[in-house]
């Protein structure tokens, strides 16, 4: 067993809140960074939606937007939401907070490396923030940064903004590579006694798969980003045909990373939902092992689909169908997970507190996101809907479900563990229903706009005859966006009010099984009073041998425990 020396120590303010090596404080730092950028990303969304609904008018609270600024808005909105909100919150905050607690460890395997990762992300955030204020403004070549547009300053008129964008991304990648080492080593090596791999909560499996996907896919893009930077500042010609380079090379490198990256974001979100479903259905998750196997299958498949972003890019048309087939096949493992979640509800005893509502919302929204992905994945249909609002609506249905619905589900669920107080249920439910309805009001019109052929990244749909009749849809989506942003106010109020005045939480307010609920709320540095011993899997709800509806992983009662 662990040979540990425990020292009573007065820890300074800086070591507690700033340069902390405690995974829980680091998780909160990630959460703070993610929420900060979520506000920025939301404001950018407001401005770009304003421009689309009322082109070239003054946006209230801001002013004139116009096409150049609009390109910057869409670029930075995408970059921020994917890399500076989704990853910090879903991996940085939830992964860091939950992995050590759920596996029964006192901290991450490499706490100092962990601190280095969050500070690298902070530095990266700073660089990205500065890029807004340099002459020429921030990057405006799309979040995918396709060269040659991104490879020469004259094409966009943005010089340092785009260089800093590349630098910020490189730092962000470095940060999450370091996190990945912790996310993988900790569950493999620091599991509590009795915690076999197949007793790990699914969230840990999802975080691990996400970490592997990220670490195995981001390398080529880092190489690609170095090349892009050299094209821009050193006159190299990796992507410029004038010097013998090839613009499509970047697309291959970007999407070889980009598609797995979708699952890097999505799987941790799914993990949150998979933790919440059994707790409020009072039933074991249906098909624990099949879910793990299909997660791994989806992870492997995700490396074989990248060229579905390039059906019309001019690559060899013979390559399209193989990529189309793998893309559509990826629906099978995800279908299995969806079916497993629904089967979990079957025969359950389901209650509907806020976390469960958001978890159910995630499932419903993701279902639409996943199913509409089949349209994009089908090569001939993609000819028409590629680069239209259909794609925009599709990926918002997948990523918004993972990031916001699952993210909020997780926040409402683990808030008592993180901060030791409960969140307000009434405000939470209000927040859910407003968010759910308004989200659909924003993005269903975009499917229709996409069917109508409206291109992504155009600043003014009124410039096109065939889009003019669709303009009411744009206006509708914009108004819904503004309301959706306002609908987050109940959450903000709830969050800060509960932080200071919420009902004090007990150790296990939801009567859940996983190890984090055996630790105090909030857990101290070192997490557990004594290192827990694990006797069973994480989802033993309503087990026939006990009278309670739950049976924590570390409660030594059941005779079958030694199996």
């Amino acid at each position: 067993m662990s040979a540990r020396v425990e020292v009573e120590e007065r820890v300074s303010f800086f070591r507690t809140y700033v340069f902390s090596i405690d995974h829980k404080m680091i998780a909160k730092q990630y959460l703070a960074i993610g929420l900060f950028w979520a506000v920025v990303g939301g404001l950018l969304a407001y401005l770009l939606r304003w421009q689309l609904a009322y082109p070239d008018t003054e946006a209230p609270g801001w002013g004139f937007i116009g096409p150049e600024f609009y390109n910057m808005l869409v670029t930075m909105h995408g970059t921020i939401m994917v890399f500076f909100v989704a990853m910090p919150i879903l991996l940085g905050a939830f992964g860091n907070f939950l992995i050590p607690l759920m596996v029964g460890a006192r901290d991450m395997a490499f706490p100092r490396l962990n601190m280095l990762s969050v500070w690298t992300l902070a530095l990266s955030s700073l660089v990205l923030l500065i890029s807004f204020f340099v002459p020429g403004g921030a990057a405006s070549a799309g979040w995918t940064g396709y060269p040659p547009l991104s490879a020469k300053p004259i094409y966009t008129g943005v010089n340092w903004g785009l260089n800093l964008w590349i630098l910020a991304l490189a730092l962000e990648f470095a940060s999450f590579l370091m996190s990945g080492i912790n996310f993988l080593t900790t569950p493999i090596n620091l599991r509590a006694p009795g915690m076999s791999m197949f007793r790990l909560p699914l969230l840990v499996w999802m975080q691990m798969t996400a970490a592997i996907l990220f670490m195995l896919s981001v390398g080529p893009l880092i190489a690609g980003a170095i090349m892009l930077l050299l094209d821009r500042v050193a006159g190299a010609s990796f992507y410029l045909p004038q010097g013998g380079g090839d613009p499509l090379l970047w697309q291959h490198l970007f999407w070889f990373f980009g598609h797995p990256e979708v699952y890097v974001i999505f799987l941790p979100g799914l993990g949150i939902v998979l933790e919440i479903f059994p707790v409020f259905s009072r039933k074991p998750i249906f098909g624990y092992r099949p879910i793990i196997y299909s997660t791994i299958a989806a992870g492997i498949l995700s490396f074989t689909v990248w060229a579905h972003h390039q059906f019309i890019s001019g690559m060899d048309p013979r390559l399209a169908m193989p990529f189309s087939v793998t893309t559509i096949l990826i629906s099978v493992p995800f279908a299995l997970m969806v079916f497993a979640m629904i089967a979990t509800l079957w025969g359950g005893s389901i209650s509907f507190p806020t976390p469960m509502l958001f978890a159910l919302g995630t499932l419903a929204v993701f279902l639409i996101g996943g199913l509409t992905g089949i349209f994009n994945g089908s090569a001939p249909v993609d000819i028409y809907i590629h680069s239209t609002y259909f794609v925009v609506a599709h990926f918002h249905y997948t990523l918004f479900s993972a990031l916001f619905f699952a993210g909020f589900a997780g926040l409402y669920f683990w808030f008592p563990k993180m901060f030791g107080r409960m969140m307000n249920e009434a405000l939470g439910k209000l927040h859910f229903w407003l968010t759910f309805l308004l989200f659909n009001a924003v993005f269903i019109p975009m499917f229709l706009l996409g069917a109508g052929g409206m291109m992504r990244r155009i600043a003014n749909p009124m410039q096109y005859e065939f889009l003019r009749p669709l303009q009411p849809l744009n206006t509708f989506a914009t108004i819904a966006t503004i309301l959706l942003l306002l609908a987050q106010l109940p959450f903000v109020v709830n969050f800060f009010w509960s932080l200071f005045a919420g009902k004090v939480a007990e150790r296990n307010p939801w009567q859940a099984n996983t190890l984090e609920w055996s630790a105090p709320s909030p857990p101290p540095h070192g997490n557990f009073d004594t290192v827990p011993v694990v006797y069973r899997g994480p989802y033993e709800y309503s087990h026939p041998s006990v009278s309670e509806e739950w049976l924590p992983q570390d409660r030594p009662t059941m005779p079958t425990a030694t199996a």
Partner: protein
Amino acid sequence: MFRWLPEMVSTYGGDIDAMMYLIYYIVGAWFLLTCGAMLLFLILYRRREGRRATYIEGNSLREAAWILVPCLIVLVLDLWIDLRGGEVWAKVKRHAPPSDHRVQVTGKQFNWEILYPGPDGQFGTGDDLQLDNELHVPVNKVVWVVLKSKDVIHSFFLPHLRLKQDAVPGRAIEAWFKATKPGRYEIPCAELCGFGHSGMNGFLIVHPADEYERWVKEHWPSS
């Protein structure tokens, strides 16, 4: 959803639309079934005093069959979509008919430069004609477009013909279409290409046969 599609005026557009319908009905049915099951379970199994959830793990093959069989159906439907998709893709991309007319379209920030080879059918000869943003073609004829770009990537989009193809600098990419109805259709650029991307727009003018003759006469009076 489909009433929002722009009018379809090409020979293969109907196949692409049919493919969309096929997927729409398949995924629509799945959505209704899945969401229906979810809502049904939420109502049937809502928490009530005195009733305890059934303990089912779903790890044995017999239990897991409840999710594995639907997955198998998903797989079969996927393969169906793939097969049909493969046929349509081959029709559009692989078995293109021989060309009646050829034009070269060059994207540049922020125009489509359209080069007609003239009566000799050869590019780079004295009778070439270049027009900005105006592509004149006869109805019911196969037109081959050679796509190039002078600077960044643009995307040649003909929404009414269900055609989209990127124009990549350093490459000459071919695309084809056969318009089935005379009229004036827009050619927006569908790939972000800089500050003038929005509004980068051309026109495809599909002429009836006699009108096209007149247009040719007008521009190449000698022929």
